[in-house]
C-alpha cells in the first residue's frame, strides 16, 4: 500500500490522525478520499473546489511533484507538504 506522510499542521485537527499511514489507493485523490472516510473533513483541508490541491500545499509521489490525478502504487511514498510561508 502507498505510504502517506501528512504535514504537522493537519494532524491536530483530527483525533487519532497520524503523520504517517498507509492507505489502499490508485491515485493521490483516491488516497485523500480514503483518509476522508476515516477522518471526515480531512479532504477539505487538502483539496479545494475544482477539485484542486489547495494553493499552499504541494504533493510529491516518490519525490516527484504530483497532482490529484497522479497514480500511486504499492510501495509509493506520498508526501503532502505545507508551503514554507506565513510570518
Amino acid at each position, binding site marked *: 500500500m502507498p505510504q502517506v506522510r501528512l*504535514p504537522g*499542521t*493537519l494532524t*491536530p*485537527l483530527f483525533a487519532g490522525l497520524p503523520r504517517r499511514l498507509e492507505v489502499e489507493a490508485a491515485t493521490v485523490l483516491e488516497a485523500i478520499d480514503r483518509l476522508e472516510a476515516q477522518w*471526515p*473533513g480531512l479532504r*477539505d*483541508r*487538502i483539496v*479545494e*473546489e*475544482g*477539485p484542486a490541491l*489547495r*494553493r*499552499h*500545499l504541494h504533493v510529491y509521489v516518490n519525490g516527484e511533484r504530483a497532482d490529484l490525478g497522479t497514480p500511486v502504487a504499492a510501495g509509493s511514498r506520498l508526501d503532502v507538504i*505545507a*508551503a514554507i*510561508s*506565513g510570518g
Partner: protein
Amino acid sequence: MPKTMLIVATRKGTFLLESDDRRDWTLRGPFCEGWPVYHAIHDPVSGSIYAAAASEWHGSAVWRSRDLGETWELSSEGLTYGDEDGRKVSKVSTLAVAGDRVLVGAEAPGIFASSDGGENWSLLSTLSGQPGSEAWDDPANQPPGHLGISGFVTEPGDSERFFTIVQGVGAFETEDGGSTWTPRNRGLRRDWPSDHEEVGFCVHKLVRSAEPERLYQQNHVGMHRSDDSGRSWNEITEGLPGDFGFAAAAHPHDRETFYVIPVDGGHGRTMHDGKAAVWRTRDGGSSWAALRTGLPQENAHLGVLRQGMAIDREDVPGVYFGTSTGQVFASPDEGETWSEIASYLPSISSVNVAVVD
C-alpha cells in the same frame, strides 16, 4: 457567578479574556490552532462560541466550542460552492446568529447557514441578481482584504429579517430569511462613481441602536444614521476628526448614544495624531466627544478593524476594543475611563462580549 467574557479573534487564533468585575481580567488561548480568525462570536442561546477562520494552508472553516473554550472542533462540511460553480470559498469573514441558525459570510461573496450548531453548512444566498452582483465575484473587483460578505445585523425577535454587507458594494436587507434582498443604501455619501445608483457604497460597519428602527453605520466616507430601519440614511460626521473608520458600537439602552473609532483614511489607518480615542455621541450624532482617559496619548498609532469594538449590556455598559497591534482596552463605565487589559496579542480582527456562567 456570571463572568464577562471577551472573545478575541486574531491573526493567530482565538483568545478569551474573562473577568468577574470588568476590571481584573484573565487570558486564555490561543485556540483554533493559531489559524487566522476573522470574526468570533458567542451565541447566548446555545452558549457556543463560533470562530470564522481561514488557514492559508488548509482553507476556510468555522471553529466551535460548546464549553466556553475548553474544547474546540472545526467544520467546513457544506461550506463550498461546489466543483462546478467556478467560485471558491477563499475565506469566511463574519458570523451572526439569527434564531436557530448560525450565519457565516464568505468570499467569494455568499452566505452559508448552519441549523445544527456549526456541524454542517449549506449555501443560503449569494445575493445573485442584486445590482453589482454581476461583477463582485471577480477578485479583481474586490477591495483589499477580500472579505466578501463583511457583516450582518440581525433583528431582535425576527430571525427572518437581517442585514448583510457586501464589502465595497453596500448593505442589503432580507425579510424572508435570505431568499430575497433589497439594497439599503439610500442617502449614503459616495465620493466615487458607480454603475448602479443603489450600490457602490463602502459600508464598513452597521449596528442597531437600542431602538430597532435606528441604525448607525461607519462608512468609508462618513458616519451615518438611519431612523427608518435603513431605508434612508443621513450623514452625522460633523464633529469627528475624520470621516473614515471601521469599528462602531451602539449603547444597548440609549438610542442616542453611539461609539466610533475614527482612523486616518490614508494608508496608515491608525488613530489620528498618534493619540488613542474612542468618540461618543450622546445625541444621535449631533455632537461628538473624545474619550481618552486611560488611553495612550503619545505615539499610539493604533488601528481597529470593523469587528474590533464591542459593548456589553450591563446597566452601565462596558466598552471594549482590540487593535491591529494586539492590545485590548476596556472601559467599565461607558467609555469614561479605560485600561489596557491585554498587551501582546497577535493582530486583532474582532472583539465580542458575552456574559457567561
